[in-house]
């Protein structure tokens, strides 16, 4: 079967269930392609042998009731995987092997999926270009000098290059949606509390959410359905009735009210993005939706507030990496010296920068001016959305202010790098679900994405909208496998 690699996740599942393909055929095909694609640097850990054995085991006693029967999946290296090295792409965890499994990945394996490897990302998910990884930057399959976005850059690249039929990422300020947009795939950040954070290396606890990255919206619904669960091990996990997103998927969005926030027309947005947004509105109208102009007045303040809250939480969350219990340790003359050297050598520059920002904004005398202020701004941003959702069912925005940039372009200018997340960050601050779908190409043939933001727990609503838009947009990702020699 020559085109196995081109099948969507949902197609693969159906073909396994109808016994047209075996798990081993799929697994070995993806492994072979992954082996040929080292140039992309998408993987940081491969579990190919183990995966092949698991697929054989599946085929001997297949359970077709599973939602992901014998499907090989590579996942972002931020998810702890039992007995498989988990590094968060950091030197400080370079040899860390967890004895436990994250709830989200556990959910995948429970539905029959098979781990084929761990995917590169920005160190501790801090970055928008996958250039902060200790294991080197990831190349986008779109072009050899292009970043795949970040922090789930390895996941985006692997998926777009068809090294895995679907994948999962984490999104703290846009880390799923921005790379999805840059590489022409679908990426969804669920409502805060939908997917358990148990076993995911924490970046910023009040913002982090795991979510699916897939080739199309139907796959996205299927993956979310498997990933999302109520987890007593996570105090912020919310117990709500989780629908069968994939079977509920409804292409008819007639009469839905979609808001267009005027504040998202920001300085520096390219005309191509403007046009794309306009096109998006028209697609929605074609689908029978009603377009309504709305205002989210505090949008401009979201990014600076985010760059207080996220580093503050990170500075505390990353205090556990001290060379005592696991991971890298540098020799030191005494305990404090050991701490300082371990953390200085173990963390990369961006992570250190953010720890320092976070430490500063929480330090004595600055808490009220920064952290408390940011939490108040966060409240205002949340209120903006609450007000908007009194009038509309969902909100349409571009996913990013521009298409993917070149490797090295923004490396030395943190603020311009941070500005990349301007459309995605407010969604995290307000804890809302957001999905990015590929919607077109720019003049260089680089993909562009549109974002649909939903009400809390209305993943179904935004999936439905994305589903109907997807049909109209009819986006086809074209890569010529240039990275395979």
């Amino acid at each position, binding site marked *: 079967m020559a085109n196995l690699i081109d099948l969507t996740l949902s197609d693969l599942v159906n073909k396994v269930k109808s016994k047209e393909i075996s798990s081993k055929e799929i697994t070995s095909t993806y492994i072979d392609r992954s082996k040929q694609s080292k140039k992309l640097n998408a993987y940081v850990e491969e579990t190919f042998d183990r995966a092949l054995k698991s697929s054989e085991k599946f085929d001997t006693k297949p359970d077709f009731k599973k939602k992901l029967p014998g499907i090989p999946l590579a996942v972002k290296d931020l998810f702890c995987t039992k007995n498989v090295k988990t590094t968060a792409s950091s030197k400080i965890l370079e040899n860390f092997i967890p004895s436990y499994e994250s709830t989200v990945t556990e959910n995948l394996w429970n539905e029959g999926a098979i781990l084929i490897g761990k995917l590169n990302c920005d160190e501790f998910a801090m970055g928008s270009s996958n250039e902060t990884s200790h294991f080197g930057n990831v190349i986008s399959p779109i072009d050899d000098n292009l970043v795949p976005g970040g922090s789930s850059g390895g996941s985006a690249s692997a998926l777009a290059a068809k090294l895995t039929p679907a994948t999962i990422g984490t999104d703290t300020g846009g880390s799923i949606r921005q790379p999805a947009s840059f590489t022409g795939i679908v990426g969804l950040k669920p409502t805060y509390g939908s997917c358990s954070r148990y076993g995911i290396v924490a970046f910023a606890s009040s913002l982090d959410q795991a979510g699916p990255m897939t080739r199309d919206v139907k796959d996205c619904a299927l993956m979310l359905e498997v990933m999302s669960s109520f987890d007593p091990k996570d105090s912020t996990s919310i117990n709500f009735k989780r629908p069968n997103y994939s079977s509920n998927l409804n292409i008819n969005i007639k009469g839905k009210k979609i808001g267009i926030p005027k504040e998202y027309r920001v300085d520096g947005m390219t005309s191509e993005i403007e046009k794309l947004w306009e096109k998006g509105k028209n697609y929605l109208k074609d689908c029978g939706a009603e377009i309504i102009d709305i205002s989210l007045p505090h949008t401009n303040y979201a990014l600076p507030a985010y760059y207080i809250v996220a580093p503050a939480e990170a500075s505390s969350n990353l205090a556990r990496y001290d060379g005592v219990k696991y991971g890298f340790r540098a020799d030191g003359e005494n305990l404090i010296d*050991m701490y300082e050297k371990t953390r200085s050598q173990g963390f990369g520059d961006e992570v250190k920068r953010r720890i*320092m920002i976070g430490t500063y904004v929480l330090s004595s005398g600055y808490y009220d001016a*920064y952290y408390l202020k940011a939490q108040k701004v966060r409240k205002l941003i949340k209120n903006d959305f609450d007000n908007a959702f009194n009038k509309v069912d969902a909100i349409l925005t571009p996913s990013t202010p521009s298409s993917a940039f070149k490797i090295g372009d923004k490396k030395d200018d943190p603020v311009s790098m941070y500005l990349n997340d301007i459309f995605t960050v407010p969604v995290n601050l307000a804890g809302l679900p957001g999905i990015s779908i590929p919607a077109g190409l720019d003049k260089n043939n680089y993909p562009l994405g549109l974002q649909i933001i939903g009400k809390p727990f209305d993943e179904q609503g935004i999936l439905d909208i994305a589903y109907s838009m997807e049909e109209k947009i009819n986006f086809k990702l074209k890569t010529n496998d240039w990275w395979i020699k």
Partner: protein
Amino acid sequence: MSIDLKTVKHISKLSRISIDDQKAKKLEKDLNSIFKWIEQLNQLNTDNVDPLTSIAETTLRFRKDQIVSKNIREDVLKNSPKDNKDYFVVPKVVE
């Protein structure tokens, strides 16, 4: 407000991250540009706004007082950088 070199060194001490002078100077520059950008928040009056304490608008869920995690010493110690079957080992501490 600008962040001087002394503050950078103080923060690095609090963060337990040693930095040399060259790095400190680079950080001073980076942090100042970042904080200059962050300062735009001051344009916004938030006097009568309650801070958001939790995005999940619910309260803490209780767990029963039951021992579930048993002795997993081997798992807990196996990743530690200094080998010891009973303890974590760190450089001598003087109190």
